[in-house]
């Protein structure tokens, strides 16, 4: 198989921000076991800034590393900034992924989108 970058392996070995957030402001739940990867992303938002993020992931090395990297990238970002974090951004931050693993980075992007959507919905709900 084509090799993972050192950065991918480092995140795989020591994934950051594993776990759940109690009472999160947004949850993204994407993927499905059929395809071999599932990700849950939890975010905590304060004054429009993502102050914390945690994940749980079922998947291969790339899925776990991209999950970890995605949480690192979003923490400290405003919601608008976070929305610019595409799968490409995550993959590049990991020094790239083998071609057959690129789909794994979609997982992180989709989870982030879903979590932000959930955050907006919860916000709308609160306001309503």
């Amino acid at each position, binding site marked *: *198989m084509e090799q993972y970058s050192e950065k991918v*392996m480092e995140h*795989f*070995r020591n*994934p950051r921000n*594993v776990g759940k957030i109690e009472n999160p402001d947004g949850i993204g*739940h994407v993927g499905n*076991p*059929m*395809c*071999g*990867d*599932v*990700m*849950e992303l939890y975010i905590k938002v304060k004054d429009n800034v993502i102050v914390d993020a945690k994940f*749980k*992931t*079922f*998947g*291969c*090395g*790339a*899925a*776990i590393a991209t999950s970890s990297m995605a949480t690192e990238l979003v923490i400290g970002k405003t919601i608008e900034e976070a929305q610019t974090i595409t799968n490409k951004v995550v993959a590049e931050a990991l020094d790239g992924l083998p071609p*057959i*693993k690129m*789909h794994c980075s979609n997982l992180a992007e989709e989870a982030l989108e879903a979590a932000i959507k959930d955050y907006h919905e919860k916000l709308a709900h609160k306001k309503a």
Partner: protein
Amino acid sequence: MKTIYLDHAATTATDPKVLETMLPYFHEHYGNPSSIYSMSRVSKNVIENAREILANAIGAAPREIVFTSGGSESDNFAIKGVAQALRDKGNHIITSQIEHHAVLYTCKFLEKNGFTVTYLPVDHDGIVKLNELEKAITPQTILITVMHANNEIGAIQPIRQIGEIARKHGITFHTDAVQTFGHIPVNVDDLNVDLLSISGHKFYGPKGVGALYIRRGTKITPLIHGGDQEHRRRASTENVPGIIGMGKAVEIALTTMDSEAKRQIALRDEFIKTLLDTIPDTILNGHPVNRLPNNVNISFEGIEGESILLNLDMEGIAASTGSACSSSSLEPSHVLLSIGLTHEFAHGSVRFSLGRNTTKEELDYVAEILPGIIKKLRAMSPLYKK
């Protein structure tokens, strides 16, 4: 760190004694076996000697052995070759759902070219359902191809019985014995087969060489046309060192096979028991008894195979998985789905395949390391809620 190599079903190291027999044939006796001068006679004689060794090993005549470049070529040659040769007789082929891709994708290819293929289901242990076979046979059926033992879950198939049925109906029968030859007894008459595929590197021979047994009288069209080699059944200058190496590997396998199979079965069963006992929500894939002596295939609920392998690799342990994430598809192994595993379990499978140098100490080490890895990954998994 010395690697604990538990992927012998993927490939084995060439036995040093095998390599040694090959060496003189690279630049000392390098003559083309088809030439007529004395120098070539050496090459010719040694490949004919290897042919005889292999033929004797499976109860065949030397004329019935064709050397190939490996298991995949043998499978393609057998299936396409018979399909082509018997096209006028019929266009139906029967195989199983758990074949190696070299068989499966060859059948899919033929489906695009006017053939119909029946894929026989297997039971939960991965054994082909014999009663489905008779039902599948039609007057158009020209070929049955069912593997001797499955490469992923090690399930040994009832080849002898399938062969009896094939013979009763006058249907040509091929078996892919890539995982069995050199490991358990393989005799073409006992198995009632007309064609049988072998690959050198699966039993401590070199990579890039294999063989196809073709029973006398079996109609088959070559896959590789050209020169007169191999009685015109497979053209190309013979891979002399490779063939000699495979011959030597056969010799060694024959003398060690019985004791080695016994030894591996004992190790295997203890290892399986330990894993199932110490790690919760874990199942054995494949038949508990009718299985390759070296095959251990376990599914761990809620986590994915590749991430287990990477963790094992960090500890110096080499194994394999049937999870999709190690291949270019997203679907997990067709074999694991065929035995009825859910995707959650299918993605979480790991195959440990033992070899001649595998020791109890190595397996004990793996059994010690593994529970921690599984626990860590499950803690990270949104699917494992216990």
